[in-house]
């Protein structure tokens, strides 16, 4: 009856869904050789969260707005230069982190940095369910073009695939998942939840289908195991979730293909 309002159930629901989405998108970030982008852009969320806290809206929207700007910036650099503009991106995002730390009100700072899934509410759960559905639906439509453009951009273009549009849609999804993950692991650790399960899946899979599904599964399991463990021992869930994904990664090294 009151399962829906049971705090642990809500935490697990939001955590597992976010883990699934993060793992799945992470597998394509690894394919696209942009593993660190999730890490870097997650820092941009902080000033967005700060502004949301100051203007008293749901921090998710502040984070997402800031991430959206960051993603547009990265996409623009990607199509304008064809080069990974690492230095520029690195500088820009470190600066926004500094700015974010400065303007985030002190009580909210720790929560924004490391997440606090124990404070999750029903509206957060609904937002998460809807957006994870958007992520998987969109990926279903674009994964073919995305993968082909990794194998060969020219080949993809010659088949009529709009590479830059797909690339932008994908970055948009990354922004969504990072914004969702802020509740689960916080700004600092969300990059890890995107990359570690996917890196673990890569160790043990031959095919794309195996790789992407395992990545999602590992992400989900990390969240499930991490939140349960943290709740049982009364620890902070964010870091435990990330450590759980690390344990999975170490285990997969034993079965590396």
């Amino acid at each position, binding site marked *: 009856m009151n399962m829906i309002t049971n705090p642990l159930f809500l935490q697990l629901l939001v955590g597992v869904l976010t883990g699934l989405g993060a793992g799945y998108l992470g597998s394509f970030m690894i*394919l696209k050789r942009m593993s660190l982008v999730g890490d870097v852009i997650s820092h941009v969320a902080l000033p967005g969260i700060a502004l949301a806290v100051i203007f008293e809206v749901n921090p998710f929207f502040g984070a997402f707005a800031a991430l959206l700007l960051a993603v547009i910036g990265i996409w623009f650099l990607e199509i304008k230069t064809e080069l990974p503009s690492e230095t520029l991106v690195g500088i820009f995002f470190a600066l926004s982190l500094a700015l974010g730390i400065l303007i985030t009100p002190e009580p909210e700072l720790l929560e924004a940095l490391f997440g606090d899934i124990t404070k999750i509410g029903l509206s957060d759960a609904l937002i998460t369910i809807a957006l994870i559905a958007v992520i998987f639906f969109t990926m279903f439509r674009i994964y*073919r073009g995305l*993968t*082909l453009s*990794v*194998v*060969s*951009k*020219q*080949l993809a*273009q*010659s*088949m009529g695939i709009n590479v830059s549009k797909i690339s932008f849609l994908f970055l948009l999804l990354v922004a969504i998942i990072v914004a969702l993950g802020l509740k689960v692991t916080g700004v600092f650790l969300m990059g890890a939840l995107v990359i570690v399960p996917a890196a673990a899946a*890569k160790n043990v*899979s*031959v*095919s*794309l*289908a*195996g*790789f992407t599904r395992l990545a999602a599964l590992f992400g989900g399991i990390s969240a499930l195991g991490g939140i349960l463990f943290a709740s049982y021992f009364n620890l902070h869930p964010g870091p435990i979730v990330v450590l759980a994904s690390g344990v999975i990664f170490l285990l997969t090294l034993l079965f590396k*293909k």
Partner: protein
Amino acid sequence: MPGETILTVENLGVKFDNNEVLKGLNFFVQKGDVLAIVGPNGAGKSVLFRALLGLIPYSGKIKWAPGLKISYVPQKFNIDKDLPLSVEEFLRFKEKTPEKIIGALKAVGMTDEHTEFLCGLKHRKETTPSHIEHHVLKERIGWLSGGQLQRVLIAWSILDNPDILLFDEPTAGIDVGGEETIYNLLKKLKDERGFTILLISHDLNIVYKYADNVICLNKEMVCYGEPSTVLDPASLVKLYGGEAGFYKHEHDH
């Protein structure tokens, strides 16, 4: 019908940021022809292909015969050992029918020897479909050797029965012995299926042997015609500078 012109190019030019990469190209291609494009690095060979495919802006005229199916295999592939993508998944991005995929793999010779080689097995009995299904298709594409990968790419290109194939350096990354095999395969497929081939190559021997016509390209057309007539020492020197030209026919086929 032989002799039917399927591509006419008139005064083609391509500029990148006011840099003329190609200018004043005039040529035509007839059905069933093999047209080779040779030239030094940076001569605009790949750019020419991309213009022909309509992927970049150009000036002048490119006229394809209507209703042609064009298949393009670019030079640049980012396929490394790490890429989690199976041969089957790659081919299914283009064509989902299993019979067609197996048919194409058979046509490029990915059958007994190759699969046996792939999995180190030696039973000849259960060759063909089941072999392809079980071993080649499930293989990670990055684990193929250079020659096998090239065969898979050729299989990809013929999957939808194209009328014309554009190949950018079909033998990049293959040792010298393997090159001949790949070109023999292309020629065999062409004779069987009657498609037209445009290919970029760096190997003049191959051009002599397989091409009906050749374009020597270095931003503009340095020569154009039958290889044995137009690839004379003078135009090769003009094309590559210095001491080329000694290629001409050590072996006469």
